[in-house]
């Protein structure tokens, strides 16, 4: 049952081959049996999950079900869930139980999906390895000595380890795509504004975007159908019409023009990873796509630009965690200053503090023009690079990451080398574009991700390209050995 895709589960539930309670029970049992290997969940509320599954079964029986009714889904612990602890991977929110649902959660609930549990993540979504989590690192099901990537590492590991058929993640600079690549699953970061940010603990408001993580593009399309849409309570959410993202999955790739930015295939890219990507591109070419060499000239400025803007926004987004109203509060503060400084000193981890300091500095009087303002100007240039390319191509393709998953601890003491992990993914967030990662092969048993980048609101096209690729390949169907145990 656990190896079934979302699409198969949808069909099985419809045809009453099994109930939502049975499916949910199966995944809960697997979490129970196997998650000690991965540490992919922070919170699992079995009783609530089974109750929701029971409700879904009633809907299925009464004929009021919709596509996702009864499907268990794991959510990154950054989405606020009514009555369920939402930690954001931080000691700061270890005790925080929101009295409200994020819009994304609300949408899944009204669709009848089952909230399976809350997944591990880098603290406040800041990290590329899931090692900054207060709850300890999640591990990569392909090799538990490796990181699963981050920040949505728990969601990627849970799906890869078959502990959930699908999961949600958020992506501020690659946090869906990079862990999807590392764990051999499919993940989509939609266009900025496509999915509501309401109820998602904010990291960098102008970059954050939630998206689906699953085995296949088809499964991602199922989830996106529920997630996407305007939210009047998120002023940055788009009013552009949504589509049925499942409808065009099978469209032909004949005539598709795929741009290959030279900057994404140059120095820094692991050779074997590059070969996987090239093979994948050949497959797309075989289906009728044309490959076009092109350039994103401001690529080299992506990392510094991102690491000004994201920390700047984070530094003020995280100011609300002050020990006054909710969350962690230090013991016996002697005065206000002590309350603030010890609460934040004790409640935040190293990486979060580092980014708050960097961001505060970048916004300070006398530095604002040189850093934040300049970064915003470069951000426009980076966006223009993409717009220019999209005049000639429909989709841009390249590697999701410079190389496959690395060992736990390998980069945790070297922030700048960690930041390089996101060299191919950051620009997509800066430009607000949709991007996805899909399995494209293995290097020494470690998955490799192919990244696809599209025009604003071209999610359907990206999913179509990915689906056609997956129709011809089986990388996304491979199962790690560690996940083969515990089968019911």
């Amino acid at each position: 049952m656990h190896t079934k895709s979302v699409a198969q589960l949808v069909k099985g539930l419809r045809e009453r081959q099994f109930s939502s309670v049975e499916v949910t029970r199966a995944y809960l049992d697997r979490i129970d049996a196997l998650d000690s290997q991965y540490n992919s969940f922070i919170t699992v509320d079995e009783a609530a999950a089974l109750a929701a599954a029971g409700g879904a079964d009633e809907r299925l029986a009464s004929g009021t079900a919709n596509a996702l009714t009864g499907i268990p889904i794991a959510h990154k612990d950054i989405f606020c869930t009514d009555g369920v602890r939402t930690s954001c991977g931080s000691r700061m929110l270890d005790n925080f139980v929101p009295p409200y649902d994020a819009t994304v959660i609300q949408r899944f609930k009204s669709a009848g999906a089952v909230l399976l549990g809350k997944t591990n993540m880098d603290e406040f979504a800041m990290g590329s390895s899931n090692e900054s989590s207060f709850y300890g690192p999640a591990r990569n099901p392909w090799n538990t000595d490796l990181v699963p990537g981050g920040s949505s590492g728990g969601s990627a590991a849970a799906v890869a380890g078959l502990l959930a058929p699908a999961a949600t993640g958020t992506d501020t600079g690659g946090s869906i795509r990079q862990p999807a690549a590392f764990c051999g699953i499919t993940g989509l970061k939609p266009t900025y504004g496509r999915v509501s940010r309401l109820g998602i603990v904010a990291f960098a408001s102008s970059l954050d975007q939630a998206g689906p993580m699953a085995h296949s593009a088809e499964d991602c399309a199922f989830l996106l159908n529920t997630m996407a849409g305007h939210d009047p309570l998120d002023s940055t959410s788009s009013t552009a019409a949504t589509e049925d993202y499942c409808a065009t999955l099978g469209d032909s790739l004949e005539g598709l023009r795929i741009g290959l930015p030279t900057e994404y295939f140059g120095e820094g890219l692991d050779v074997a990873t590059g070969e996987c990507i090239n093979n994948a591109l050949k497959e797309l070419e075989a289906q009728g796509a044309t490959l076009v060499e092109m350039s994103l000239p401001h690529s080299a400025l992506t990392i510094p630009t991102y690491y000004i803007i994201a920390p700047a926004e984070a530094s003020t987004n995280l100011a609300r965690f002050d020990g006054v109203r909710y969350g962690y509060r230090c013991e016996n503060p002697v005065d206000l200053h002590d309350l603030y400084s010890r609460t934040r000193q004790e409640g935040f981890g190293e990486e979060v503090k580092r980014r708050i300091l960097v961001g505060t500095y970048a916004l300070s009087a006398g530095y604002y023009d040189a850093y934040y303002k300049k970064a915003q100007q470069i951000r426009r240039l980076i966006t223009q690079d993409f717009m220019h390319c999209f005049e000639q191509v429909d989709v841009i393709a390249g590697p999701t990451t410079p190389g496959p998953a690395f060992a736990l601890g390998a980069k945790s003491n070297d922030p700048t080398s960690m930041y390089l992990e996101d060299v191919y993914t950051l620009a997509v967030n800066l430009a607000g574009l949709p991007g996805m990662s899909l399995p494209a092969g293995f290097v020494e048993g470690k998955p490799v991700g192919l990244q696809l980048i599209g025009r604003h609101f071209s999610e359907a096209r990206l999913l179509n390209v990915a689906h056609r690729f997956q129709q011809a390949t089986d990388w996304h169907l491979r199962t790690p050995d560690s996940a083969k145990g515990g089968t019911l």
Partner: protein
Amino acid sequence: MQWETVIGLEVHLQLATESKIFSGSPTTFGAEPNTQASAVDLAMPGMLPVLNEQAVHYAVKFGLGIGAQISKRSVFDRKNYFYPDLPKGYQISQFEAPIVGKGSFEILMEDGSSRTIGITRAHLEEDAGKSLHEDFNNHTGIDLNRAGTPLLEIVSEPDIRNAAEAVAYLKALHSLVTYLGISDGNMAEGSMRCDVNISLRPMGSTTLGTRAEIKNVNSFRFVEKAIHHEFQRQADILEEGGKITQETRLYDADRDETRSMRSKEVANDYRYFPEPDLLPVVIDDIYIESIRESLPELPADKRSRFTAQYGLGPYDANVLSDSRPLADYFEAVAGECGDAKIAANWVQVELLGQLNRAGGTIEKCPVSATALGQLISRILDNTISGKMAKQVFESMWKGEGDADEIIEARGLLQVSDTGAIDAIVNDVLSANAAQVQQYLDADEAKRKKLVGFFVGQVMKLSKGQANPQMVNELLAKKLI
């Protein structure tokens, strides 16, 4: 040395929207602590602001009211600082691109002179909550009901030269914003709060001196006192050859002094940057014009019209146009009785006198404008004398009925019957033969005095009901 005071005012005006500027919580004053604070106001994780269009509408209305430039694209920024009653750790405000640009308006001084005060800008922002330092056993309580209340911060040019002008500016501003209906202007409830920037310079100098900013001066009277105090403090320092420190000072009304706020409280780098959770506010000409069309007649225009249309003097016109309800009341009285000057006099002297004594407002006045107009009509048609009308007014105030009912009930009808008055006059003249003789022998000045005496006697006998004009005419005929 002669010092010139240079004053600029920053007024924080609470806008009279029903809900907060970025959340749906109500803005009603005086509710139980934290009962009007939603997850957005509490800055719960993941919560996002949504701009209240009404606040934008009111800000534009204000801008049009002072003839200012309205920005078709304005931007919200985050102003970052830590304080327990600032839940997000930043205030959403407007820094580089405020919604209202340069404008100006006229203030009228008590001596009838007027001055134009420039407005530098006005921008939208959210209010903070309140820290309550009492009743918490050495702890501080936080009430977030006020957090997120929309404010329009109105910054004046340093065009104000003394306390009287500052007060006149605030009164004119108060009048304007209540006319526009964008604020209740209730200073006691903090709807209009004022920071005073003040510096001194030698008379005749054109460069600005170093200023101090006095925070939270929240009544007209305190503004006056704080300016007087701060003038003296700065003058004393300068006279002794000292230098003014640029700083923020707090006005202590109890001690009538300003004192420096600890540098810790003010040494902030606010790290302003555009609020990424909100889109820029973009408005078009159609929107602006539709608001312009909805503007009421503003105080200055009304003042001019009262002068031109009713022939009122500038002082009367100013008093009567001070608030919209009063102006409306006056115009209704004038319309009812047909004599604007007498109406103006009655409204200012009798009506406002009674209201002040009773501590009431024009909105809750027990005598309607129509009723007062009818009363004045009874003077004009000689039914009663002005003196009697005042008694009738007192009775109307007490709710004893309308003018005609009271006149009827109390038998106050003025006697204008020539025969009846003639008889009384004859009685008075025959009963006071000596005075009649004195009159006939007297010069013009003495005669006037004696006429007064005869009139008084007639009025006494008629119990005040004789028409004084007719009495005078009859006496003049008979005393030859």
